């Protein structure tokens, strides 16, 4: 038979079956489960009490507070208090309180190893695939099942291979790849895994790879994955973890069986924008040039990592946020904030007139500061722009890369970010 993908290999190990067929439903043992304050203890603990049971393995659970931080009212304060009590009650050593968005913390703390089978109680758990593990998102009810049994069923997915080759031009990044793929692949790809490869992906740091895998959720895939390489191993060591000796053996065979293979040229990619109210409603930035904006938002797991803040600062340097427009920035983790402060990125962002918001999921899902009123228009580095997602049902949200959001903040309207970058091929 033809060769196996990295996903085939991980599911064989996690299920203990070596004869899996695509589409077959199989039960896997979970190596790591990410619980968040949103769908974690507040929803799981009452069910554990109802079942009169505890957690299967506290050392395989990672718990983070990110959706409701910091508390803005008594209800969110109560959710956070309960989350802390859960960590104490069940002895969850990997509990990170208000340190950043869970998907980011997994990467920063070196908690994901290539070949792992991991689950998370949030759709963007696919982001973990950047480390060459199979990590997928599930609802709190199923995370309850995992918390009790350490097992979960999955349909053995087919893999779509997506190759990007060549170098990005200035002002283009992984986010533009994903907005383009949302349009070209659509958002309905259940039963499929997106495997990203090619020299463009190999050249990316782990944060940009995270952007690719994060938005596999928007493509509707089971998850996204990138085969591990030296950059993966270096990131693990930076997190204080020595990679497993077999880490680089987790790779797809040369003759691996893919359901589809796509090949793209990164040099031809231009900045992409998704218009309301779907990430798949995307096009080249020129299609939306001149749309006036009230708010520019830089936040979320996909759009406020240290690398994203750096892209933001590249455009903002020497510029000011347009009068009448507000630029809100919620770094994805405390570490991203520290790094941005240390390397001057934060100074550039604040000197341009940005308002810094607390680390956390924030306005991305209308849970924190920065929500929108009726008829307001926002351009955002987040991953979703469904109606009502960031507040009012009558607000409009455009999605773009940190370059595009920064440029719109300066211009007060959607423009080509390459106009602000020296040596870029914009119209200016």
């Amino acid at each position, binding site marked *: 038979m033809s060769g196996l993908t990295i996903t085939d290999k991980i599911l064989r190990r996690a299920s203990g079956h070596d004869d899996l067929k695509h589409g077959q439903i199989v039960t896997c043992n979970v190596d790591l489960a990410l619980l968040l304050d949103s769908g974690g203890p507040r929803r799981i603990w009452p069910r554990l009490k109802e079942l009169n049971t505890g957690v299967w393995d506290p050392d395989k659970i990672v718990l983070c507070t990110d959706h409701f931080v910091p508390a803005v009212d008594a209800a969110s304060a109560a*959710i956070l208090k309960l989350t802390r009590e859960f960590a104490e009650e069940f002895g969850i050593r990997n509990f990170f309180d208000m340190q950043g968005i869970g998907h980011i913390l997994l990467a920063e703390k070196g908690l994901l190893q290539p070949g792992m089978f991991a689950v998370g109680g949030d759709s963007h758990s696919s982001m973990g695939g950047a480390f060459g593990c199979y990590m997928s998102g599930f*609802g709190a009810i199923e995370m309850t099942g995992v918390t009790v049994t350490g097992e979960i069923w999955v349909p053995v997915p087919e893999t779509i291979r997506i190759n990007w080759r060549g170098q990005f031009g200035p002002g283009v990044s992984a986010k533009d790849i994903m907005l383009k793929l949302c349009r070209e692949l659509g958002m309905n790809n*259940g039963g499929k895994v997106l495997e990203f490869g090619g020299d463009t992906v190999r050249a990316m740091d782990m944060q940009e790879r995270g952007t690719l895998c994060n938005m596999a959720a928007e493509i*509707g895939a089971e998850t996204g994955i990138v085969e591990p390489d030296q950059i993966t191993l270096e990131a693990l060591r930076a997190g204080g973890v020595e990679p497993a000796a077999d880490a680089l053996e987790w790779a797809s065979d040369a003759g691996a069986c893919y359901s589809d293979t796509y090949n793209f040229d990164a040099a031809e990619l231009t900045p992409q924008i998704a218009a309301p109210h779907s990430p798949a409603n995307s096009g080249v930035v020129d299609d939306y040039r001149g749309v006036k904006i009230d708010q520019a938002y830089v936040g979320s797991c996909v759009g406020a990592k240290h690398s994203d803040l750096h892209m933001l600062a590249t455009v903002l340097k020497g510029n000011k946020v347009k009068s009448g427009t507000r630029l809100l920035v919620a770094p994805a983790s405390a570490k991203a904030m520290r790094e941005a402060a240390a390397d001057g990125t934060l100074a550039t962002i604040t000197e341009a007139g940005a308002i810094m918001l607390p680390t956390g999921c924030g306005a991305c899902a*209308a*849970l924190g500061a920065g*929500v929108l009123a009726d008829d307001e228009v926002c351009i955002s580095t987040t991953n979703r722009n469904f*109606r009502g*997602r960031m507040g009012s*049902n009558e607000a409009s949200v455009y999605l773009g890369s940190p370059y595009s959001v920064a440029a719109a903040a300066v211009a007060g309207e959607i423009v080509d970010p390459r106009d602000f970058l020296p040596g870029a091929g914009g119209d200016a």
Partner: protein
Amino acid sequence: MSGKAWVFGDGVNTDVMAPGLYFKESMDVMAAHCLEAIDPEFASNVQPGDIVVGGDNFGVGSAREQAAMAFAYHKVDAILARSFGRIFYRNALNFGVPVLVFPQYDEINKGDTLSVDPVAGTIENITQGKSYTVEPLPGFLLDMINAGGLMPWLHRRLQEKG
């Protein structure tokens, strides 16, 4: 059992089923705002036993279980759609809400009276006098669905293990 059809289009997402603005509220409040952005009448007029019909990728979006719970809360008998968002599909089954892939979803009109048997995979449109056969629920999961969802199934499993 039969109920009235509520018909929706493509890509109905979890943010409109369970809006983030009400995320900290009880299920009573969340369910009252279910789908208000696209059909303000749904939450106040849906009756126990009614059937929800959608197009492509019904439940696309986040992992929030309140999206699926809202339909369980309203005691919707079944959800039929051309295709489903993957997490929503799983959540619905785990709450004991039958979800069936139904390619002919666009033949259903709002208000049609439907009768659905999720185990046999049969759908009857009583208003139009039409019958359909669809893929029944996955056999692997029937045990859990027949138990009433994941919680009763977990309860049984824990009891069996002593």
